[in-house]
């Protein structure tokens, strides 16, 4: 068996499909143009926006949340300060520093067009960019990728995980990447499998994408030996997982001619019981997320200045705590836009209030901002996707959701 391994082989650019990517990348080297990066983090399970971004000065907040209500900023164990009305959950230290450094915009009372309470349909609408679940089989971010201005690498997006989530599925070529424990295939076996897949439309493309992604990661120092997460405690596991995802995402995005967009998702936000307050279940998960974001910033280094990271969830949770010290599925949620490219230091919220009359269907935070307005703002200002494309193909039937302006630094 030959000693040459897949990764060495690929770096020679000899494999037709995978190699084309690398060669084209080289041809672009030296061309100076702005290269914005975008990271989308999907918080699956419905993050409790009233816990992550507590409106502690709202007169109804403490009564609704009872023993899991967060104390005002300044109090011991209280929320971290934002603007005197809203605070951040005490586990979100890095986000608070980012806010102070004007690199974070917090959105509140946001929602996709979805108004029911199924996680799975809610995520589908959040990702497909239409008004209804299952109305489209591709994702809005993928459709945006097909229309990026300027010269764009063949694979303009990467999903960190074995498979590609709906938001990144569609006509634009994207790849997926996840760490492995296995030894790489030898050159000859890989070439034979490539031949065997030549007539198979799906597998030939997937194989080429996988080999290209591996080649890219192999070219990055320190990326080869990534341990698989095995710790027992949930928070430790979450920390390890974020470390992996963040290192991988940064490895791709740091490349001058690598993917511009990365997506990963996180789970465990469905806090029906014993959610906790300043400490507890949700606090642990938020803390792990916050640390993950801090290390993303560090790993990206100078590229952070060109980066925007958006954190979104399918919907919010009930305004009141339920009978089991948790919260059930709700409507209005919080979202975050973070990064060196972001014109931050603001909370964007047309706050509807939490009085019984103000609540949506008498139970949820009422949504006052369409998430698509934020997405459209970011896509146009940051990635340069044209208004026409956004209206026609990325977010069909979204004219009412006008793009937010001035989200990015000029």
């Amino acid at each position, binding site marked *: 068996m030959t000693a040459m391994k897949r990764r060495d082989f690929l770096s020679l650019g000899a494999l037709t499909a995978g190699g084309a990517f690398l060669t084209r990348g080289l041809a672009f080297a030296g061309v100076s143009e702005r290269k914005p990066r975008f990271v989308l983090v999907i918080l699956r399970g419905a993050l409790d926006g009233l816990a992550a971004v507590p409106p502690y000065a709202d007169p109804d907040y403490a009564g609704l949340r009872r023993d899991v209500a967060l104390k005002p900023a300044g109090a011991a164990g209280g929320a971290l300060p934002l603007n005197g009305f809203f605070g951040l959950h005490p586990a979100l230290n890095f986000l608070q520093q980012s806010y102070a450094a004007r690199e974070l915009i917090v959105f509140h009372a946001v929602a996709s067009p979805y108004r029911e309470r199924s996680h799975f349909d809610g995520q589908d609408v959040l990702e497909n960019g239409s008004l209804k679940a299952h109305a489209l089989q591709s994702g809005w971010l993928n459709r945006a990728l097909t229309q990026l201005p300027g010269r764009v690498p063949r694979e303009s997006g990467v999903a960190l995980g*074995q*498979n*590609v989530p709906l938001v990144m599925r569609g006509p634009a070529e994207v790849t997926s990447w996840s760490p492995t424990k296995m030894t790489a295939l030898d050159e000859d*076996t890989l070439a034979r*499998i490539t031949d*065997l897949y030549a007539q198979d439309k799906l597998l030939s493309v997937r*194989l080429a994408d996988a080999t290209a992604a591996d080649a890219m990661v192999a070219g990055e120092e320190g990326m080869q030996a990534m341990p698989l997460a095995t710790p027992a405690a949930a928070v430790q596991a979450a920390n390890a997982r974020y470390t992996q995802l963040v290192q991988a995402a940064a490895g791709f995005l740091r490349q001058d001619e690598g993917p511009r967009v990365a997506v990963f998702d996180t789970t465990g936000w469905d806090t029906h019981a014993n959610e906790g307050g300043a400490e507890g279940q949700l606090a642990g998960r938020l803390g792990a997320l916050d640390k993950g974001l801090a290390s993303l910033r560090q790993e990206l280094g100078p590229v952070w200045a060109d980066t925007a990271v958006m954190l979104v969830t399918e919907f919010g949770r009930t305004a009141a705590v339920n*009978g089991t010290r948790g919260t059930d599925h709700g409507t209005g949620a919080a979202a975050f836009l973070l990064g060196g490219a972001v014109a931050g230091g603001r909370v964007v919220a047309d706050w509807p209030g939490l009085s019984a009359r103000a609540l949506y269907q008498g139970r949820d935070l009422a949504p006052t901002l369409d998430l698509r307005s934020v997405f459209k703002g970011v896509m146009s200002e940051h990635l340069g996707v044209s208004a026409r494309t956004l209206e026609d193909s990325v977010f069909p039937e979204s004219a009412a959701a006008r793009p937010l302006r001035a989200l990015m630094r000029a």
Partner: protein
Amino acid sequence: MLDDVSSAIAANRFGLGARPGELRSVGADPRGWLSAQLRGGPPLIAAADLAASQVTLARALELRRDIQEQRKAGRVDPTRAQEQLQKVGQFLRPIYVSEATARFAQAVQSERPFLERITQFWSNHFAVSADKQFLAGLAGSFEREAIRPNVLGRFSDLLLAAESHPAMLLYLDNHLSVGPHSQAAARLERRDSERKIGINENLAREILELHTLGVGGGYTQADVTTFAEVITGWSIGDIRGRFPGGEPGRFLFRAEVHEPGAKVVLHTRYPDTGFGQGVAVLNNLARQGATAHFIATKLARHFIADEPPPSAVKRLEGAFIASEGDLPTLYRALIEAREGWSEPLAKYKTPNDYITSAYRGLALPVEPGKGPLAPFELLGQRNWQPGSPAGWPDRSADWDGASALMKRIEWADALGARLGSRLDAQELAPELLGANLSAATRTAVTRATSGAQAVTLLLAAPEFMRR
């Protein structure tokens, strides 16, 4: 020749992948081979060393209680408490391993692979995810106790068994849900007026959305809330805690926690008969047309195509309704539906399908211990760990990522390296793939430079990635 195609479909799509010799035993009557598997009783797992859920849960509750009591008495520092919590994990993990290995061994060795696939389908339909506290030790016994005995019965019985199993109640928090006007609520509120006592709607919502009517099946938020009240009191016995009483770890209806009064769910009024009120709602849900449609669609998606042909869905739906949810009748309608026999490789294998069919095809033994579970982790589908009550997704796009494909190939390569000197892939190729074996794969396997590479190419072949 046509019959050869049908045998390959029977063994690889409806079954779990052909074992050497299996295509011959399918023979000239693939439909008969499938329907024969519905005879001979439910697909139980005969393994004396697997503990009942009650035994596992009682012990886990006891371990947790020790921690809680020590903590209350101020006798533990945080490090110590962490160690104690790890003890619970150390107790549960080996149970998970034995259960998952036993399940995998059954799938690899079963001579009724169609029935085993059906079992996995229902287990995933009523998914409990092993990543929640205690569930690692209960997901396996849940499948053995609630799913397996009922897959050849009526849907309503399967539904009741699943929803009243302690694993499901724990997974979707129902043991914590308290009727706001129940005796227990009054007592607890006297003790702690700050504390709000009430329902948790998690289980009620997922029963409606994921287990019966399906999303868009015609229920409202009010139905969810009321149904959650109806099933307050569906709980688990414990020695102490907020609601002591009952046999630890076993299902218990706690009348004092149950929300009193008649309730209206989906336009039907249910008098308060205690436990019977929830059973009556479940029975009514099992009879709904929306439920028949939802189950028929999922089944057709699993066995026929990602976008199931409406004609096949209609046929299955009709069988479900006409037989009042008799599951063998439903499976026979599935076998008879001609749409299932027209496209030989319409479904992309899930990692579980892929690993199981490789083990079957190469006739590999499932050794005890963690070893056989490693590929499930590597390829991204750990047993009973979908991470969500919706279970694992069932479409090609959910599984055909670039990185996921490379993981399969790398695993196939490792298997080839381990077994290539003992196996003859040229001989195995027609045994595994039958009429699906392509000329390209046959040539590639024949021309391989080593036995190891031949095995790798056979398992990496496009027709082995699909079913």
